[in-house]
């Protein structure tokens, strides 16, 4: 019989081994799943894990895909640390994209200033969208999970209204999209011959800032205390409400920035399909990255593999793109399951009473 045995203290090694184990199990399950679907499993492995890293261009695309995930996840992780459950990064991403688009359309031809204003508008927009659940939570005690989630649907409908209505490109043959942005409203490409742009710098700055905030400031320490134990936080004078506000506003601003980078980067315009589920995937990235900026950097690259693999699966394997969401959900399941090994170890057989007593006496 397999049995779980409590460790005397949580294992630090398992804390970081568990995500790796979860990724491995997801890959294994994926290969088995493809075989069951009658596809060549090796071909599937190639599409998901070899093609995205086999050339410089492919690698640059992988990094580009990872940037919105890392931006959203870095913000979410700060909130999650303080036990603030912002599930609506997807909505804040969309509102950020909308705000950046409005700036690009009406203030688009000024070098530097257009982009700077787009960044500010997008971060403010994302933070404002996140401020709604923050206010309703602190003022009326309304559940922030459900409120932030409902606002995702509202944001989706809002962007749909805008690109079908007021912001639609008049010469766009009635497609739900805006005009393409001016060059001054596009993030400059960093490496010639690729699409990898200035967003990479944003990501590095945000991850470093998140690290400093979480581990090198008193505020970050208080947020972590608030997340570990509400009681301990209250006794030590941490204001739970300001933690909710901080967690929400920071994660909203990060998601908004990611939305800006999407319209000012690979898309170059706003469409009704502006987000491909980055905000939801970022929740998984935050968990797989152990809510740590460095972990998030790695996790966002892994998640980007799933996204690109999902896109290519349609082309090379004739499988629906939603397969990437299946893998995402599976990854989170495996991670949560493997996390049991942090506090418990697997033991075989049943301990006899005598052994239990001896063990108890020894420890």
């Amino acid at each position, binding site marked *: 019989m397999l049995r779980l045995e*409590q460790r005397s203290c949580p294992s630090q090694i398992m804390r970081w081994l568990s995500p790796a184990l979860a990724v491995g199990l997801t890959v294994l399950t994926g290969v088995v799943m493809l075989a069951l679907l009658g596809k060549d499993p090796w071909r599937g492995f190639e599409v998901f894990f070899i093609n995205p890293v086999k050339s410089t261009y492919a690698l640059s695309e992988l990094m580009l895909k990872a940037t919105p995930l890392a931006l959203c996840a870095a913000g979410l992780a700060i909130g999650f640390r303080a036990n603030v*459950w912002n*599930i609506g990064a997807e909505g804040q991403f969309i509102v950020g994209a909308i705000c950046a688009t409005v700036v690009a359309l009406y203030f688009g031809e000024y070098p530097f200033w257009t982009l700077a204003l787009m960044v500010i508008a997008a971060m403010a927009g994302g933070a404002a969208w996140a401020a709604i659940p923050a206010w*309703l939570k602190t*003022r*009326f*005690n*309304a*559940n922030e*999970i*459900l*409120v932030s*989630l*409902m*606002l995702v*649907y*509202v944001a989706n*409908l*809002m962007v*749909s*209204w805008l690109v*079908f*209505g007021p912001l639609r490109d008049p010469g766009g043959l009635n497609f739900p999209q805006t005009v393409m942005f001016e060059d001054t409203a596009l993030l400059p490409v960093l490496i010639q011959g690729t699409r990898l742009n200035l967003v990479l710098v944003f990501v590095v700055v945000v991850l470093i800032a998140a690290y400093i905030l979480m581990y090198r400031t008193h505020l970050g320490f208080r947020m972590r205390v608030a997340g570990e134990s509400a009681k301990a936080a209250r006794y030590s004078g941490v204001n739970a409400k300001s933690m909710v506000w901080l967690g929400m506003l920071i994660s909203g601003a990060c998601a908004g920035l990611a939305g800006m980078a999407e319209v000012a980067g690979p898309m170059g315009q706003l469409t009704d399909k502006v987000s491909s589920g980055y905000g*939801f995937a970022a*929740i*998984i990235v935050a*968990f797989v990255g152990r809510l740590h900026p460095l972990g998030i950097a790695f996790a966002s690259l892994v998640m980007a593999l799933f996204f690109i693999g999902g896109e290519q699966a349609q082309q090379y394997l004739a*499988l*629906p793109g*939603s*397969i*990437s*969401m*299946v*893998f*995402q*959900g*599976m990854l*989170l*399941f495996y991670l*949560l*399951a493997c*996390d*049991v090994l942090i*506090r418990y170890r697997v033991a075989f057989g049943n301990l006899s009473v005598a052994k239990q007593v001896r063990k108890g006496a020894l420890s």
Partner: protein
Amino acid sequence: MSLGLFESILFATIVAGTPLMLVALGELVTEKSGMLNLGAEGLMSIGAVAAFAASYTFESTVLGILAAMVAAMLLSMVFAFITINLMANQVATGLAVAIFGVGLSAFLGKPFEAKVLQAVPGYALPLLSEIPLLGPALFKQQWLVYVSWITLAAVAWFLGKTRAGLALKAVGESPQSAHAVGLPVIRIRYLAVMFGGAMAGLGGAFISLFHTPMWNEGMIAGKGWIALALVVFSTWRPWRVMLGAYLFGGVMISQLFFQSSSVQVEIPSQFLSALPYLATIVVLVLISSNAKMIRLNSPASLGKPFLKENS
């Protein structure tokens, strides 16, 4: 017989509210045992696609419904295993269920998109459907609507009047005490989660077989999350779930009403579509601002893991 305006609004309200009621009743029982399963959206999606696939393949509505309940129940058992046996965070695991369920349903349902099922005819209850005004709206519904009423009564009776219901509530209030008096905490929580899963599957089946007999990615469109909000709205009391479900059903059909009314209102369709989500937020705010009521009625151990060692 054609229905008058009032009757057709009432009829459509009940149709729109029924899936919400089925899912929320299941989640209510789950939460009463102290388990918070946020995966209703994923469970409903799986239920909807399983119902459609089975019903389309075997040409049987009953088989479709059974497939939906079994499929969603299996997924809810994954949730139960990870949260109960492996003691993982219930909020995070529920999110995993939602993401996985929505993704898997889109993946499996791809071949069934753009296929159409024969609409299931309504079932008129004898005598009752003859009542003027209310009769046709209430008693010429799909038979699953009557099932939802029976389920409501059964859940209310189970939680309020039976020993087993009392045991379930005890587990939700204090699993440690329940364990100490010899109640099988783990088994009870498993059963409660599985019931919630099956009901969410049933709700999904109602949408893909009865409400709009087709499958399409994203057709659940947040109804699972709204059902979760309904449980809060009901302050964990079964009869109030019905009230909330029909209230939201009414909000959901308001756009159809606006579009078909002779008064031409210049409102973008997206705004009307956003109403149910905005209404959910408003309702959550109204109910939650009374913190005392929430605290008194919500199960005390909701969302907290049960560790046998500590008891």
